[in-house]
Structures are given as structure tokens and as C-alpha cells.
């Protein structure tokens, strides 16, 4: 194996592992997102933490040595999440009661996202902030999509308890249909994984056209020794 191959190989593997890891880190957050309000609560917290941590990391990029990047990211993200949790307890107490001990789980997701982007500390503060914002927006959208689907299927309503997040939104509950026998599976834990799987499949159908054999063939880097090209997540 020559050095060039190892490089490509490592990059590819790293990329794939990141994908799996991000999906894994997302799981606990998905499980808690059984309504729009809980998904929004977790998503917005993650958005704030990730954006702020990216900004702060890029600001102190000169000071952070390569060997210390990971511990620094973990410390910073953990501290910011704790702060966000305290603020949520102070100003959105009911929401914190509902999300409870799951807020700290944001740390795993955020650390992986900071890591995935090849360390925000190598970018300019503005670029890092925007990256964090975009990354977290995707997270937020995914959570809200899953939360909304589960709430709709499980209770027939949308935006219940939104006042926990927005004090003005007292009567924003949208009863789409009502039933005496709600589809409980959607609200319970397995529902999160089922809904996520179905939404991913739907996304793949809409966004990704199946790659033609020709496209896969041209995808192989010229001169590369790789023969196996596996699917993407």
C-alpha cells in the first residue's frame, strides 16, 4: 500500500465514521423529540451551543495547540451546554421539566459536529460561526421534522404546549384530527427510530436520484487503487 492510498483510505473512513457517529449522537435527541415543542427546545439549545462554541474556538485558535483541540472542544461545549441548561431552568422552567436530564445529551452531538468540520479553530471567526449555524440548523430541522411527525401521528395535534418555549403562544395548539385511540407507537421511544428511518427514506427518494452505474464509475479517482465503492449514508 503506498502512502497516497492510505491517505485516501483514511479520509474516506473518517468521513463515513463521522456520518455514523453523527447519526448515533443524534439518536438520544431524536428519542426525546416527541413533539414540536421538545424538538424546538433541544434544537434551539444545540443551535446556540454549537454556534457559540464554534465562534469561541475560532477566536482562540492561536492559543489552542493541535493536541489540545479535542479536550478544549469538550470543555467548552460542556460548559456552554450547562449554561444553556441553567438559563432554560431560569426562563423556561416547564420546558426544562419536560426535557429534564436530556439537555446534557446535546454535548455529544455538538462535540461531534465541531470535530466533523475539521475544527472550527482553523477558520476565521465569521466562517466558523456560519458553519456552526448551518450545521445546527440542519440538526434543528431534523429534530423538528421528527418531532412534528411523531406529535401529529401520536396525538393528532401540533404545537401543543408551545407556551413553554414562547410565553405568548398560549393557544397555538393545532388539532388536526382527534381520536380516542392515538397511534401510541409514534410517541413512544421506538417511534423515534421508525419515523427517522421513514423520513430519511423519503428524503432519499426526493433529494437523491439513484446514481447511475456510469456516474459511480466516473466517481473513482483516476489512478486510485480502490475497487470497492460503497453507498453513502
Amino acid at each position, binding site marked *: 500500500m503506498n502512502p497516497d492510498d492510505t491517505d485516501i483510505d483514511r479520509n474516506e473512513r473518517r468521513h463515513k465514521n463521522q456520518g455514523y457517529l453523527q447519526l448515533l449522537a443524534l439518536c438520544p435527541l431524536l428519542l426525546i423529540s416527541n413533539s414540536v415543542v421538545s424538538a424546538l427546545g433541544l434544537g434551539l439549545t444545540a443551535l446556540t451551543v454549537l454556534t457559540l462554541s464554534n465562534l469561541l474556538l475560532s477566536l482562540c485558535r492561536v492559543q489552542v*495547540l493541535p493536541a*489540545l483541540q479535542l479536550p478544549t472542544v469538550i470543555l*467548552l461545549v460542556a*460548559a456552554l451546554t450547562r*449554561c444553556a441548561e441553567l*438559563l432554560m*431552568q*431560569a426562563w423556561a422552567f416547564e420546558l426544562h421539566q419536560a426535557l429534564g436530564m436530556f439537555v446534557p445529551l446535546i454535548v455529544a452531538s455538538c462535540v461531534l459536529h465541531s470535530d466533523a468540520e475539521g475544527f472550527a479553530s482553523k477558520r476565521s471567526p465569521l466562517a466558523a460561526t456560519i458553519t456552526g449555524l448551518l450545521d445546527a440548523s440542519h440538526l434543528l430541522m431534523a429534530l423538528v421534522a421528527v418531532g412534528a411527525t411523531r406529535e401529529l401521528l401520536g396525538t393528532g395535534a401540533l404545537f401543543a404546549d408551545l407556551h413553554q418555549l414562547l410565553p405568548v403562544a398560549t393557544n397555538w395548539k393545532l388539532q388536526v384530527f382527534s381520536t380516542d385511540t392515538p397511534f401510541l407507537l409514534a410517541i*413512544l421511544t421506538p417511534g423515534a427510530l421508525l419515523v427517522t428511518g421513514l423520513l430519511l427514506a423519503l428524503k432519499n427518494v426526493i433529494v437523491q436520484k439513484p446514481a447511475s452505474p456510469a456516474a459511480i464509475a466516473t466517481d473513482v479517482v483516476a489512478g486510485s487503487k480502490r475497487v470497492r465503492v460503497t453507498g453513502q449514508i
Partner: protein
Amino acid sequence: MMQPADTSVRTIRHHSLRLGAVAAATALLTTLVYTLTDARIADQQHESERAALAAVLPNTLHDNDLLAAAFTLLPNDPDFAQPQLLGLGSARSGYRALQDGIGSGVILPLETADGYSGTIVLMIGIDADSSITGVRVVQHAETPGLGDKIDITLSPWIRSFNNRSLPNTPAVLWQVKKDGGDFDQFVGATITPRAVVAAVHNALLFFEANRELLLTEAAP
């Protein structure tokens, strides 16, 4: 890779200092936010506890601060007669309500293990006339969609205890309708309401057995 000893020592010191600085900075940040939010969080917690207590014993029935009039009930508390009626598995708080310094009611914690899964923890408010002012489920692990209708957010069933007392509901009627009693069961779930009805009945019996102690003893 070999490094000269002094270089590696310097690297270690360098790294430690940097990491220490980051740790100190994040600790400072967390401390700052904690100090800023501490008082408000305590307020919010008390407010939420008061709201939970007001749900079982209306604020119109007392003029004291219930949180300040809390007392501890132990499992099989020797200070009370027939303590096993509350079914407590661990120490929990009760609250004395006073109106003009006279006992006007009490909030009691109770537990029952006769539900479908796990322990159901409840709070019951009883006024000086021995009538129930409210019952709420504090904690349960009943089947979602079936037994969990004991939760006020899912069904108003738990309100059917309001204004009940031992005189107005004879002992034989403290059962679900299926067993010949006065309380509705749920479709597909009889065990849970049966357990709750029995626990609430027991709480009233406990109140009668300890009436003087619960109502008249001055708050500590």
C-alpha cells in the same frame, strides 16, 4: 519518536498550562451563569411546587405558606396511627394548611404498588371536613394509552375524587364500577384505577385515624 527530555517536559508543562487555562475559563463562565440564574431557578422551583400543591388543596382554604408548613412522613412512621395505610416506601413530605392559625386541611403523600407496573405516587388534599379537595398523580409508570389516564393531563378521571369523603361514599362504593363501586374504570385498564381508588380510600382512613395530629399540631 524520541524527544529530548527537556523538550517533552516543556511540552507537558505547556499543554497543562493551556488546558488549565481553558478549564479555568469555562469554570468561570459556568459559575457566572450559575450565580446569575440561581435565585431565579429557586423561585421557579418553589412556584412550580406551590402550583402543584394548589392543585390538590385550593389556596382559598388556607392563608399560610404550605412549603413552610411541610412535615416528613416516614414509611411506617411510629408517630402516626396505622401508618401502613399510606403505603409509603420512602420518606415523603406532607403539608399542613392553616387558616387564621387553625388547621384547615392537609396534603398527604401516598404510594401504591398495586398498579400495573411500578409504584404510583400520589398527593391528596383533605380539608377539615374530611372531604377530598383534590388528588394528583406525582409519578407513575402505567401503560401509555391505557392506565396512564390517571394523569390529569390525559384525562379528567382523577377529579372524580373531588368532594368525596368517608360519610358521603360508603366503604363498599370505594371500588371501580366493574367491582360494584362508584368509580369509572378505563377501557382496557382496570388494575390501575382499582389501585388508585383503594389508595385514596386508605388515605382517608389514615386521615380519620390521625385527624387530631394532622390538623392541630403546630407547625414545627
